[in-house]
């Protein structure tokens, strides 16, 4: 199939688009359309498709525009909720992972001192430190007891890092 342009195609197209074909066409243009394959195809197809359009448009069943507006509002609302939920879920996952890592670290460090802990439980009733009034000061005397401060600190850090991550992703 050879693609050959016709110089009069634009003229024919304009008359067809404006609905003035063949009335407004000069006899010379009409005779050109009869002899030019390209322009003839154009007129034939345009008129056929246009008559199909007129027929098809009359068969259209239209919904209420209000229903479509409502559906669009609902979809946008759901999208807004989803966009709020996404960074929150990310922050929760991050906080959870940090918490698990801290917990694993704690268990691992305590496993090393497991025997000492058992010993401490046996000696506990005899210890002066077991009394409530000395408990506070005692916690500073043993290195292991520093975990009493370490755990809440790490917990707070995990929560804060979750919030920071949320705010960072929210900005994006």
């Amino acid at each position, binding site marked *: 199939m050879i693609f050959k342009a016709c110089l009069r195609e634009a003229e024919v197209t304009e008359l067809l688009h404006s609905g003035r074909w063949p009335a407004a066409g000069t006899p010379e243009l009409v005779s050109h359309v009869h002899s030019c394959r390209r322009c003839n195809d154009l007129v*034939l197809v345009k008129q*056929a498709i246009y008559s*199909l359009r007129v*027929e*098809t448009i009359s068969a259209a069943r239209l919904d209420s525009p209000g229903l*479509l507006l409502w559906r*669009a509002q609902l979809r946008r609302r759901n999208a*807004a909720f989803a966009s709020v939920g996404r960074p929150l879920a990310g922050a929760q996952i991050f906080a959870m992972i940090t918490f698990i890592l801290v917990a694993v670290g704690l268990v691992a460090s305590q496993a090393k001192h497991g025997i000492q802990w058992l010993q401490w439980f046996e000696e506990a009733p005899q210890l002066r430190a077991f009394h409530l009034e000395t408990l506070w000061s005692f916690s500073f005397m043993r290195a292991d007891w520093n975990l009493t401060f370490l755990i809440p600190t790490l917990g707070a850090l995990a929560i804060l890092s979750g919030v920071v991550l*949320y705010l960072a992703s*929210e900005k994006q």
Partner: protein
Amino acid sequence: MTWEYVIPNVETGAPSRASELPMDNDAFAAFYKRSARSLWAYLARVSGDPALADDFMQESYVRFLCALRPDEGEVASRRYLFGIATNLLRDHWRKPASTSIEELPEELFAEKDRAMQLDSHASLGRAMARMRPRDRQLLWLAHAEDYSHREIAEITGLGEASIRLLLFRARRKMAKLLRERPAEKARRA
């Protein structure tokens, strides 16, 4: 400091503001009235399925309303709408048809009658149906909607130079099918 300040989007007003649409009710109703029939005709003729055209028309308008885009006037909005519909059709054709006949709703069979009603120009419709979907799309946009090659390129995502050639081929094929029609009638007579 309130929790709404720490987590800015979790305030109660945010989702309701998000559901505000770029077009108000009256403007949309007027735009819908002017464009819906043309869009439905395009979808119905290109897909060959009036039920699918109903669904895609709804979906096109919902996506159109959800899109955050500046108001560029009626002509651009209409073109954008046809672009959405074209993408929906393209996705539909790309999707593998895996539905078994048992899963099809009963209404779908009733819709076939409506498809038949569409074709009082039955043979004209048949000629159109014998074209490839992309050719139907191009012919409809060019000759039913009177879009220029540049506008068709924008709607379909094809190159403007390709449109010229593809449209030429599609038109030639359609014209051939239309010329066969009277010849067939004469043979039957």
